[in-house]
């Protein structure tokens, strides 16, 4: 009896201390995660090397998956991943240079390199330069979506919306989704379809959607469900389409404005490109000849190709005009190139 009351009082003390600690602490100062080194997310020595539960007849050691065996193998295996990224804990600086992509293993919560990783351990930012042909992890996009809308995505469209399937619906599903997905970016809209146990989550940036897709794939929300995340198809709602169109027009306007402003600052570059032609055989590597192509007014793509819309040559000519006005020095400028040496 006495012991228990003692225990209780100690608990109370601990609790009160905890309360004090929380109440006295100033409003949480946001620590910059990038100021500290990235955390090692998994220890390679203790990394489990177990086969997944048998769902087929043949185990493919390259994909670590079971295959064959009729129906069961054709069904998706609904197993939750063992790892999950926690941005607050895991993000940090790595040896990555500025324009390198984000580490895919970091997004999946299982990068064992930590600060030694060659890729970034952080969220995508809107200042990142991501080629339209790649996603934020540096993987190449394809022209078409995969049939199941999974994978890296298409370079013909900008998709900021994810389909989230396998949900257990409740009245606060929007709140739950917000809680879990806003860790990876700014959520613009969440639309839950109660009848179909799925939801659509729209992010502000495409790269945030890409990150969230990898980070939440096969993870659970608060329950035991296993999420199945895909790219969303285009919204069939005509209102949403008009809104998207208006948004695109707004972006296009600001882009054009920037473009018109940029014409005032021409920066002609001087460049020489060498094309190396390796021989078929490796042995003759040393004898591979090297051609030097000088980028003259007759540059390859200007010569071989007449752009259906020669708008750049105008831009370039505009630039050239300005150049002439400024300097007497004559530089031949087509498509932004000029040769190293003097040419006619």
């Amino acid at each position: 009896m006495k012991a228990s009351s003692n225990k209780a009082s100690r608990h109370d003390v601990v609790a009160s201390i905890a309360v004090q600690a929380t109440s006295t602490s100033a409003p949480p100062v946001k620590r910059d995660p990038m100021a500290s080194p990235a955390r090692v997310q998994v220890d390679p020595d203790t990394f489990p090397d177990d086969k997944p539960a048998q769902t087929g007849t043949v185990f493919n050691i390259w994909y670590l998956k079971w295959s064959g065996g009729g129906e069961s193998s054709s069904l998706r295996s609904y197993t939750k991943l063992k790892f999950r990224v926690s941005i607050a804990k895991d993000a940090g600086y790595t040896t990555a240079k500025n324009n390198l992509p984000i580490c895919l293993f970091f997004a999946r919560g299982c990068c064992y390199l930590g600060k030694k990783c060659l890729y970034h351990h952080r969220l995508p930012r809107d200042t990142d330069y991501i080629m339209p042909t790649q996603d934020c992890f540096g993987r190449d996009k394809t022209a078409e979506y995969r049939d199941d809308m999974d994978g890296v995505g298409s370079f013909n469209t900008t998709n900021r919306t994810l389909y989230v399937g396998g949900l257990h619906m409740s009245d606060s599903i929007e709140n739950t989704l917000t809680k879990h997905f806003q860790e990876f970016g700014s959520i613009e809209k969440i639309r839950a379809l109660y009848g179909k146990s799925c939801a659509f989550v729209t992010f502000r940036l495409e790269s945030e959607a890409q990150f969230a897709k990898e980070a939440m794939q096969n993870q659970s929300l608060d329950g035991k469900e296993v999420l199945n995340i895909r790219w969303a198809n285009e919204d069939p709602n005509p209102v949403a389409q008009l809104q998207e169109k208006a948004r695109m027009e707004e972006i296009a306007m600001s882009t054009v404005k920037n473009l018109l402003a940029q014409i005032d600052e021409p920066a002609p570059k001087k460049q020489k490109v060498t094309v190396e032609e390796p021989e078929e055989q490796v042995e003759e590597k040393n004898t591979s000849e090297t051609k030097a192509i000088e980028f003259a007014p007759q540059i390859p793509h200007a010569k071989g190709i007449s752009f259906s819309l020669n708008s750049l040559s105008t831009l370039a000519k505009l630039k050239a005009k300005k150049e002439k006005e400024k300097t007497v020095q004559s530089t031949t400028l087509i498509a932004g190139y000029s040769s190293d040496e003097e040419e006619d």
Partner: protein
Amino acid sequence: MLTSSDSFSICDACLGPDKHLKMMKHPNGEECKSCTRPFMVYRWNSSLSSQKAKKTVICTTCARSKNCCQSCMLDINFHIPLHIRDTALKMAGLPAIGSGAVEASKNRERKAILADKQEQAFGSKQEEDQQELARNILTKLAERLNDAPSFKKAPKSLRPDESKLKNIDVSKILAKLPFGGLLDKETSKGTTSFFLFGVGDDVPQYLITDMCNSYGKIKLLKIIHKARCGYVSFTTREAAEAFADSINANGLNSNKSTAGLVLLDNRHPMRVAWGKPRPLGVTNDEHYKISLVVEKVMKQLAEKDREANSGPKNVAKTMFLSY
């Protein structure tokens, strides 16, 4: 000399700033990601870019028809994404670049055939002086810029089938929603949550999150854009009070007998009142019916505000502009 098959179109940004650049050439090295035909692949490393080598991903024919870079697929002249360029051209009333037939086709063989035809067409076409056309584009775009305020806004909502809607009863849901709610401390003892209504269809959720986060931790946030309303709830009463105070003091709410008005991002009006989270309907039709009521209430409240005080006339004006 380079033959025509040696040509490529790669933008300055992809080539990098190096004075001398070494490129590897692989004849028929890969299939074009756009038209699926094999093409001459170029790979190179530029000192500025990542350790990862850059390479061309689409063939010259596809790049030429889209007028884009073979590596980054940005417009080769303007360095902007193709869909933005095409939107801008459309806005200026100019013809689109490229037919888009290759992209539209789902069949790989058909894509290749279309691309072959495209290539032949390019071969026979003489290089025209398109300077006029290009100048047109820039001037038209510039003109269009001046008309920028005349943007038509996206429509607010679409009316679903009226006959269907009659059978749907949302009165039970509506009865529990605090449309007449206020934003003073006395009537709301102990609550930490707010009912938000009048949230536009195009209001991003992160605007609301950012606004609330500055007052304290959010416990619950649920915005249903279709129903044009939602909830936010804080973890502590202090945070909630600070939030309410800030709205009361934002200069739009001299009339305390209506729910507090907020202008998100200076253009999206929204009303805030104390209120516990209640169900907001589950189906599309229910959401739509609620949104109709929300719209009506928003108008009434704007009217009330205007009657009550002649002060914030501009508020009422904004409300009417957007409804």
